[in-house]
């Protein structure tokens, strides 16, 4: 390798190392902030290493575990249900519009892609879900609106079936006279495991991270998941104070940071192991005919 190459590679490494650090640094600060003693934090500001270390914020969360535990549990339930429903709905649809020769396939594909370009907007969607479907203050409000599936996911599945599975596998079964339904359950679905995993992870992350449905459709704070809890305590301490016992000091600023830490923890832990699935999903979702 000549000098020019070595210099360029060295430069690439340096830039990427810096960018990676910049990507990670805010999380580092968040964790450090959550472990800082409250009055020090207010007086001196957070640092990348706590000036006065304290687990007070986490102890406070443990003492008002009803508040945090309930939100966490709701997030887990919603995410689990969301993944199950999302896969059940998306996988077959993606398979169908990938099936060459199906009459009307082009129309179906267009109807799905069209939803990426045009929609009724928030007002119409909000009124439909609240007035027609009475979804307000139910668990369904966190699961159904805008979350179950989307054109991106369907196209991702379609592209997988179309480009990543050898056609011969289907041809052979077709000659054997298997029905179209059997082809899906016996051939396509088992072969789709990697993309189903990708879909499950992407759907899971979007459910875990969703706070907009809660913002739009929930008045009852008892149904808040972890993200809506975070949203509620971001600017007001009233909500946090409910969880506090009588005479317990409320370390507001650091509790906020600690709550954010527990909200990102599942993703931070799981993500490095599933990184490749996400990358595959992102690259496979590109609209391609």
């Amino acid at each position, binding site marked *: 390798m000549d000098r020019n190459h070595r210099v360029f590679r060295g430069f690439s490494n340096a830039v990427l190392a810096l*960018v990676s650090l910049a990507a990670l640094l805010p999380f580092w600060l968040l964790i450090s902030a959550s472990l800082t003693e409250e009055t020090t934090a207010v007086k001196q500001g957070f640092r990348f290493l706590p000036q006065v270390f304290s687990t007070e914020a986490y102890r406070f969360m443990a003492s008002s575990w009803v508040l945090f535990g309930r939100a966490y549990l709701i997030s887990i339930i919603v995410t689990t249900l969301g993944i199950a429903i999302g896969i059940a709905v998306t996988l077959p649809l993606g398979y169908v519009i990938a099936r060459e020769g199906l009459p009307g396939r082009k129309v179906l594909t267009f109807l799905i892609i069209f939803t990426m370009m045009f929609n009724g907007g928030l*007002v119409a969607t909000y009124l439909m879900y609240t007035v027609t479907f009475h979804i307000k203050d139910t668990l369904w409000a966190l699961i159904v609106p*805008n979350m179950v599936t989307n054109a991106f996911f369907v196209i991702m599945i379609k592209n997988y079936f179309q480009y990543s599975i050898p056609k011969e596998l289907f041809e052979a079964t077709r000659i054997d006279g298997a029905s179209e339904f059997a082809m899906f359950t016996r051939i396509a679905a088992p072969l789709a495991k990697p993309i189903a995993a990708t879909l499950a992870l992407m759907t899971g992350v979007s459910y875990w991270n969703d706070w907009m449905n809660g913002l739009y459709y929930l008045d009852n704070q008892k149904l808040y998941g972890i993200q809506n809890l975070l949203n509620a305590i971001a600017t007001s301490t009233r909500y946090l104070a409910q969880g506090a016992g009588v005479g317990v000091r409320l370390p507001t600023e650091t509790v906020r*940071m600690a709550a954010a830490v527990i909200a990102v923890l599942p993703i931070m832990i799981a993500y490095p192991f599933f990184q490749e699935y996400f990358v595959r999903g992102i690259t496979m979702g590109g609209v391609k005919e």
Partner: protein
Amino acid sequence: MDRSRSIRRAWKWVPLYALAVPGLAYFFINNYLPMEGLVIAFKSYTAKAGIWGSPWIGLKNFEFLFVSKEAWTITRNTLGYNLAFILVNTVLGIALAIFLNEIRKKSLRKVYQTMILLPYLMSMVVVGYLVTAFLGENTGIVNGILRSLGGQNIQWYTTKAYWPFILLVVNTWRMVGFDTIIYLASIVGFGDQYYEAAEIDGATKLQQIRHITLPLLKPSIVMLLTMSMGRIFRSDFGLFFQVPRSNGLLYDVTQTIDTYVYRALLVKGDIGMSSAASFYQSFVCLAMILLFNWMMRRYSRENALF
């Protein structure tokens, strides 16, 4: 005889349509049914009368919207931020993808890639918290360090001038990994042969980037740009809602069409104004997509959306 055979042939597709039903039903309810609600923009809507029972009022809602100063502000902010985001993410995304492609050690490349994409997986609520950890009035690290150096707090959350910059940085931090991954996938797909030939001719790395990588990337760039142009009238609601902490003093530089619609609908309860803004957004968006698709068809047919 012939007829029964064609019926049998049609019959064999029924299971496939059945498989598509749940998904299609969802798209119908979630994405198509609300479209009828677009007419609310031309009505004086009351919940009691419902969408079709409420009286038509022509363009009244739009008149109210467009005489207000806000119509211009939200249009300018939505377009301006999106253009800046598209430009920065495209340039940085391509640069980072080229750098990543240089890293031959698989494990190291994976580490970089994993870290650069991590912010993309964070909810905007959490991103809002991360920003306060830096910029919070008393607890933020920036003001903390300023104070320890004998300086004064900077009022980040009430000073308009900082926000275009803050929002650009936050958006880049969160989104650049996504573009990087897509461009990297294309670059990896080019294979080594062009580069090997260039090596033999003694081309430097920069020459290779300029004369091989960038021209080959053109279709991907055009495709991603077209997709973002189609969304240029939609803003990332979370970014503009969570990060500036809904501070009214900042609306001039942080309010976009999406936050405006939300606030008009659910904070003020003004269905007329919010539906007019929502309608305006949906239709300009559609017009943009048709326009860019038309341009795309002229540029390269196979990359056009339809």
